[in-house]
């Protein structure tokens, strides 16, 4: 396992993963909202939020599944 070879405890790895995932999602949401509000000709909002939703699903499930396996 990666965390053994890098001498990082499982708990620290999971906390780091969750924090990074949360930052990605929050910053991503801010950027999408900012793009839609500040541009004179923004791209379709539904497309932007749908793409964000796809990313959100993968990131949340990725972090959850990884945490489950690493801590399990």
């Amino acid at each position, binding site marked *: 396992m990666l965390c053994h070879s890098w001498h990082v405890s499982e708990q620290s790895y999971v906390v780091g993963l969750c924090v990074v995932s949360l930052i990605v999602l929050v910053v991503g949401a801010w950027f999408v909202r900012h793009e839609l509000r500040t541009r004179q*000709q*923004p791209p379709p909002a539904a497309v932007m939020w749908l793409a964000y939703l796809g990313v959100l*699903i993968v990131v949340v499930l990725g972090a959850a599944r990884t945490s489950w396996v690493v801590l399990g």
Partner: protein
Amino acid sequence: MTSTESDVALPSLTARVLGWIGLAGRLYLGYTFITAGLDKLPHHSTTELAVRAYQLLPWQLAPTYATALPIAELLLGILLVLGVFTRSVAVLLALGLCSFLVGITSAWVRGLNIDCGCFGGGGQVSDPHYLEHVLRDLGYLAIAVYLIVVRRTAFALGDWLFGRRD
């Protein structure tokens, strides 16, 4: 040229150079995502297998993701090459690359031996190259972030379509 003239010309020159670098980044990243989309699009079952190999998404979601991903990559790549909605596309690509990084590192940490399936293929392999894939995606992410920060790139169709003040 007097010092006043050079002071005035400097920001414009800098912006122009940054715009040309942005164009190079746009074309490279766009070409990469178009290639990735085209490699996956005709091989739906292989892409679905690659998605399932990560063991992240629910079983029922994998076919939808395997269908949507190549189409999204292709469309975003084309928009990037054309320079339409460049900054918005770069935001979406950066987010997508973050999700790919989560997927690849997750497979690495869980000890799975799979191919990333980024440019077609995927599934079980004996010798995965996770570090290589992570570094490559971080490079793509750096280009996407540059496109978000630089705002304006040279030869962007969006500038002609929507004016240069968006």
